[in-house]
């Protein structure tokens, strides 16, 4: 039931408290609205129950193992929430003068420094509001760089076929033509195809490393030489930074620009549609183009960098600098973990993934890249299962919900048939991981004994299997009080 359907006319949040009409006498008549606002009239208790019930119907990281490949659904330490919600942070208006916000600005400056250091770049701007905006800012800087050199022939961005769909979308938004680079049978970028593709038209290459195939790109140094040799720049998609954070630095691999998803690697909450944080880091040659505002420091004083400081900046991406609450959580997380702890993130994220892969392999489950060590995630291919039983990766994913686990990512990356992408993250216990493997093996067994049960799953969730085709073809996302206007 929607909260609007619980609405009754004139109901107030606290039913027994005396009704107090607001005084609107001071507001000019031309500013008063004539229509009633379309808001539900429910009691406080109704609102609390409604949203508590909704949250209980969800799978979330606080209630379930959530191995959603490529999404890094790690635990969000409560301490980060606690400190980010200190009244002095919560109450600060973004337009308050810098004189009253030195503490907040120091936190943000230090986060810039931490991210700069851990990625091996020369500067970081925290301003992008999400990964997608970070990507946009990154490629916009590549464009600004070439334009600043009047190098106008560079109209193509190279993107491996294993990339996230956001990469070609970003390149297109920035006015580039996308050229796809194939992947070889081991999951690495096809170097011969890359050599053939680069040239005077190449603005840059967008690369995720480790790639979406769950393997580390072994020829990264050579790839960097090929792209730089042709005059292009290297863009690092930070989607999989969790596998290498604190161990290997994108700057040392030769990348010129990087975006980070703080809601993944730095543990800020995500999965509910945001807010996210997608800071960008750059090396020396892209420093002038960083988006503003970011925080500058001199002699312990902090202030915002503006157009005056950065005349070549690609500009502002929003009214203020990023999502302050999310950035604070990431900053506190970075301090909690520390520089050495960051390497342990990568250690345990990859250990967990490799342990899971080894157990599944031993049980006879097919891996997409059986010869490769997993990074922080790995891909099972269920092609043989589908051929033998008719049960698809989607069916297995749905059946996992019945067993109390959030499903991994399915059908991405597109290169792998019946793809099932598992990312445990470093925050899960061995018991939890073993429970998931046991459940998965049970489902494989069920698929052979009783395929219909798997194909019609889930059976225990508040909503049964959805008609995805109908949902996509007849998109209906709005609820209206009255007829459509």
């Amino acid at each position, binding site marked *: 039931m929607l909260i609007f359907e619980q609405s009754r006319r004139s109901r107030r949040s606290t039913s027994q408290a005396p009704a107090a009409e607001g005084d609107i006498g001071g507001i000019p008549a031309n500013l008063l609205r004539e229509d009633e606002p379309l808001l539900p009239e429910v009691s406080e208790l109704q609102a609390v129950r409604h949203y508590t019930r909704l949250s209980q119907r969800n799978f979330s990281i606080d209630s379930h193992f959530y191995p959603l490949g490529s999404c890094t659904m790690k635990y969000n330490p409560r301490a980060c929430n606690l400190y980010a919600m200190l009244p002095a942070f919560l109450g600060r208006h973004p337009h308050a003068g810098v004189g009253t916000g030195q503490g907040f600005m120091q936190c943000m400056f230090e986060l810039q420094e931490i991210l700069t250091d851990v990625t091996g770049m020369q500067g970081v701007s925290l301003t992008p509001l999400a990964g997608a905006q970070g990507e946009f800012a990154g490629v916009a800087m590549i464009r600004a760089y070439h334009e600043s050199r009047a190098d106008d022939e560079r109209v193509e961005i190279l993107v491996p076929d294993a990339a996230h*769909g956001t990469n070609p979308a970003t390149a297109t938004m920035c006015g580039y033509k996308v050229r796809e680079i194939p992947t070889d049978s081991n999951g690495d970028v096809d170097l011969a195809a890359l050599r053939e593709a680069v040239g005077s038209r190449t603005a840059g290459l967008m690369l995720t490393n480790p790639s979406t195939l769950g393997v580390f790109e072994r020829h990264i140094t050579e790839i960097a030489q090929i792209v730089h040799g042709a005059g292009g720049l290297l863009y690092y998609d930070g989607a999989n930074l969790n596998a290498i954070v604190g161990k290997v630095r994108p700057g040392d691999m030769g990348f010129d620009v990087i975006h980070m998803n703080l809601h993944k690697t730095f543990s800020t909450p995500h999965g509910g549609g945001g807010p996210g944080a997608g800071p960008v880091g750059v090396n020396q040659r892209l420093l002038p183009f960083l988006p503003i505002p970011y925080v500058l420091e001199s002699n312990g004083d902090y202030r915002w960098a503006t157009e005056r400081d950065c005349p070549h900046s690609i500009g502002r991406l929003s009214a203020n600098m990023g999502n302050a609450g999310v950035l604070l959580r990431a900053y506190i997380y970075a301090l909690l973990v520390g520089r050495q702890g960051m390497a342990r993130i990568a250690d345990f994220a990859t250990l967990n993934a490799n342990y899971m892969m080894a157990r599944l392999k031993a049980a006879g489950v097919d891996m997409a890249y059986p010869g490769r060590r997993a990074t922080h995630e790995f891909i099972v291919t269920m092609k043989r299962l589908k051929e033998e039983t008719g049960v698809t990766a989607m069916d297995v994913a749905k059946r996992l919900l019945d067993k109390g686990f959030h499903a991994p990512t399915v*059908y991405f990356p*597109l290169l792998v*048939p019946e793809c099932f992408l598992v990312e445990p993250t470093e925050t899960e216990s061995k018991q939890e991981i073993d429970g998931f493997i046991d459940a998965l093996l049970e489902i494989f067994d069920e698929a052979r004994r009783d395929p219909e049960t798997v194909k019609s799953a889930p059976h225990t969730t508040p909503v049964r299997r959805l008609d*995805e*085709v109908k949902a*996509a*073809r007849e998109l209906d996302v709005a609820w209206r009080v009255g007829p459509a206007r």
Partner: protein
Amino acid sequence: MSDIPSELRYTKTHEWVRLMDDGNLEIGITDHAQSLMGDMVYVELPEVGAVVVGGDDCAVVESVKAASDVYAPVSGEIVEVNEELADAPETLNQHPYTDGWMFRIRAAGEGELDELLDADGYLEAIEAEE
């Protein structure tokens, strides 16, 4: 195994091409492609009159799993598109080689058709992919 009619020509990117009686070329996506994509939910077609170069992306198909570009197999002018697909994208799943045709091209030159794969060549190409 998927259906690969012997009278058609094919591309490695999973388009099929039919030479029509009027000399124009009819283009769609193969049975193999539609089975990989799964249930189609949206089709974006080129504009009639558009001039395309062989290898250019000129249409988009979107399924519950993925969105994919459809490439012009040869250079030429788009002379007709299958408007029916807008309301019935499932036709691509049900009848990929007949009612599921996507667009028709008046080829700019001759010879490009001969460079495309025949049924055996396409079968080899998809086997090599697996």
